[in-house]
């Protein structure tokens, strides 16, 4: 078993239920009506990239596409807009998944920034072609916020896998 630097501990296998639940929760948070601000981070995109990097055999481009369609219908956006941007996200995440995890968390966040930037750019370009209203330059902030959230999301979503394999009195969880 190859140990990556910074990983003192072997991770437990992921619980597929937790994986899907986290994606659904991200979708839920995305759906909370907070207004139509373009700078709000897209947590679903973040979750999709995270699981594509950590579990590429389970979450991939197909799942990203389906979640994209759900977002499109919820946002009453052009059907296929989020689907395309999430598909590209999934693809690039799978492309970098072997390399990315060898780096420390902050460096990982820097490396996923271009992915989010590309996905947001795709959405803006599609809507500009489709005759939408320009949402303001706030959309440039969204990928930065998403990348900044990467370390926290990593800590949160890997926590169940960091539990002790056999809990005892010293390690209750």
């Amino acid at each position: 078993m190859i140990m990556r630097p910074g990983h003192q501990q072997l991770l437990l296998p992921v619980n597929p239920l937790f994986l899907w639940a986290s994606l659904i929760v991200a979708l839920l948070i995305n759906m909370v009506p907070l207004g139509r601000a373009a700078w709000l981070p897209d947590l679903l995109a973040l979750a999709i990239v995270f699981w594509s990097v950590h579990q590429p055999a389970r979450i991939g481009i197909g799942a990203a596409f389906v979640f994209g369609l759900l977002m499109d219908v919820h946002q009453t956006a052009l059907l296929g807009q989020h689907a395309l941007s999430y598909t590209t996200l999934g693809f690039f995440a799978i492309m970098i998944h072997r390399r990315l995890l060898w780096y420390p968390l902050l460096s990982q966040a820097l490396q996923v920034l271009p992915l989010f930037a590309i996905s947001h750019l795709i959405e803006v370009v599609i809507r500009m072609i489709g005759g939408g209203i320009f949402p303001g330059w706030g959309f440039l902030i969204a990928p930065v916020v998403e990348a900044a959230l990467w370390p926290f999301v990593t800590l949160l979503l890997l926590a169940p896998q960091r539990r002790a394999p056999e809990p005892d009195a010293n390690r209750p969880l």
Partner: protein
Amino acid sequence: MPLGTLDRTAPPLFNQGPSALSKLIFFSALALFLMVADARFNIVQPLRAGIGAVLYPIQWLALKPVQLAMGGGRYLEDLQTAQSKEADARKALALQSERAGQADTLAQENARLRSLLELRQITQTPGRAAEVLYDAADPYTRKLVIDQGLTNGIAPGSPVIDEHGVVGQVTQVQPFTSEITLVIDRDLSIPVQNVRTGARSVAFGDASAHGGGLELRFTAANADVQEGDLLTTSGVDGVYPAGLPVAKIDRIERRADSAFARIHCVPMAHVTAARYVLVLAPTANLAPKPAPAAAADAGVAAKKKADKSGAKSDKTGKSDKADKADKADKADKAGKPAKAEKKEGRTP
């Protein structure tokens, strides 16, 4: 499975499925197809409705915290605010009850006059109250989502109003919710009539303005419009009932280099803060589209007629907006109210 994970099963060595690139190409092509189908051909409506129905429980769940927070805020609102609001509501009711009393007699009178003049009777449009669920999060359009859908009998194209004026039009209907495109959306246009002069024109959404507004295009720079003029629906489109307030003219820019004035309007309805709206049934009796050549002929004929008899015209002249505005101008010059022209225009 990344390195450093204890997994109970080994990752598949050979059965990896299609490559990531081929998946990307397939799904991107599918997404592009969907976008074109959605934007140009309108054939993915069933798919949208299906996904919407599946998504509804999750949407309901996501709405709960926000509704709870808002409801909780209102619950804790102090007594004084509630009392002052009630007083305001009572005053408004008193004002309205006087007008409502008059409205009955006026409606009777109007019906009798219309039958005397052999005009078509104005039909009452039934409405359906709905609660606004949320502003659509899509930052590229201006839409609302309401809690009434196909199961409540909402039809696409229905006009939507609030207590102050026209909010917009239902553009997508899903099983339990519907989307309303606001009047300030760039893609929505609404035929309006200036209450003061009777001139008809078309107002277009202008979301680039601060906070969103409307714009009257193709109005001649020397046309009789003033800041503060009220625009109401003209009723010529067969969608909006006539006489609903739409917008107030806010700012007029007349430029030397253009034959048209730039006219900015503010919507009367509280489009961004509406909580309850009324979905009206579409007036529905749309005139059949005339053949283009015949329409052109008729248009010319109508113009000649209008020239001869001042404000007189017929409905075939409707086909051209510019023509319409032209006629309205003529009606003005002839000193006759263009409302008469409108009524003429609606006779079959």
